[in-house]
């Protein structure tokens, strides 16, 4: 499977409301919760984003390691996981409880190349 969608460009129409973008991660002081986030990531996200989060070209999935993703706020990532972008292939994960979606955000932070 061809990974590393390094040419990924975010959908300019996938706009996050300001108040949602400002939300802090309530688990930010619980880094241990990232382990649960990894488990959730492997279960729900690797099909399109790959195990290292670099994104499958064929799926047009975001490379989560890219600065264009990593520079987004925790609240933005949480909102995008919650709502998805169904017309561009990203499903909504609102079926996951809210704390689990914040765990995913914690884990996505660990996908930075320096980690």
């Amino acid at each position, binding site marked *: *499977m*061809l990974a590393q969608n390094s040419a990924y460009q975010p959908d300019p129409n996938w706009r996050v409301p300001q108040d949602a973008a400002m939300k802090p991660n309530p688990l930010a002081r619980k880094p*241990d*919760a990232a*382990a*649960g*986030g*990894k*488990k*959730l990531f*492997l*279960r*729900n996200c690797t*099909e399109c984003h790959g195990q290292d989060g670099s994104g499958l070209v*064929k799926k047009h999935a975001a490379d989560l390691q890219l600065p264009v993703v990593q520079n987004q706020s925790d609240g933005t990532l949480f909102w995008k996981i*919650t*709502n*998805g*972008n*169904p*017309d561009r*292939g*990203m*499903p*909504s994960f*609102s*079926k*996951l*409880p*809210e*704390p*689990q979606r914040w*765990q995913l955000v914690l884990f996505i932070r660990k996908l930075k190349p320096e980690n």
Partner: protein
Amino acid sequence: MRLAYIALFAFSLFASVTLQAQESPYFVTYDHHLEEPGNLEIETSSTVGVPRAGQHWFFAPYLELEYGVTGRWTSELYLEGQSTAGDSAIFTGWRIENRFRPLAREHWINPVLYLEYENINEASRIRKEIVGAAPELNESNAELRATRAHELETRLILSSTAHDWNISENFIVEKNLSENEGFEFGYALAVARPLATLASGKNCRFCRENFIAGVELYGGLGTTQGFGLHDTAHYAAPAISWQISDNTSLRFSPAIGLTHGSSPALLRLGYSYEIRGFSTKLARLFGAKP
């Protein structure tokens, strides 16, 4: 007769061998979560009906193939059967169901539009919806299977998430295109919540996060000829789902009949298996490049 029972059991078992994450525990009520695009979920479920005096036990298994066509459209095919104690085991028909999410984002209330075509006979007992008046359960399968029913079922699904609780309401309208009997109405209401909302770091089968518990309330609301609660069937059903592994889950719900027109109890069991990236795997099988 015995062969028919064995065939039904084998059908049920085969389906269970061939069968996601955070699977809803509901059997009748739908929430707003659709199948992820390109994924196929294979589910085998069964409804066991506990009889009233003078009636017979019945066992109604069904196989469900649920496919995420797009992020806002899920389609399902059902194949169903039925076996009545002291009578026969028969195939009762098939259904095609489609669910559409008109709104792209999560809202306080999330509407989903539902349209189903049923080509079944009157012996169908899976009880995926309870509509109209209370059913007659005294006729034999031989009599019932002779009467085919082409039905259209529509639902307005409203579903919300509040503090990790799912609250869903379904309003059902069904029309039997084979008979001039007007429209039948029904409802289904449900709430559910995971037993734990934080995922542990370890892979565990019996962690509380793998269980979702809830309760459903569903029943008929009569027909255009007689709208209301008179002579209708209603059930209250605690329900639980258990995510056994990344792609398998089990659901159980004992429904208690609340009115004289209801069966005293319905026992429901479902087992599902999800094939992630089914469309990609299928395309690869036919030579598409990875």
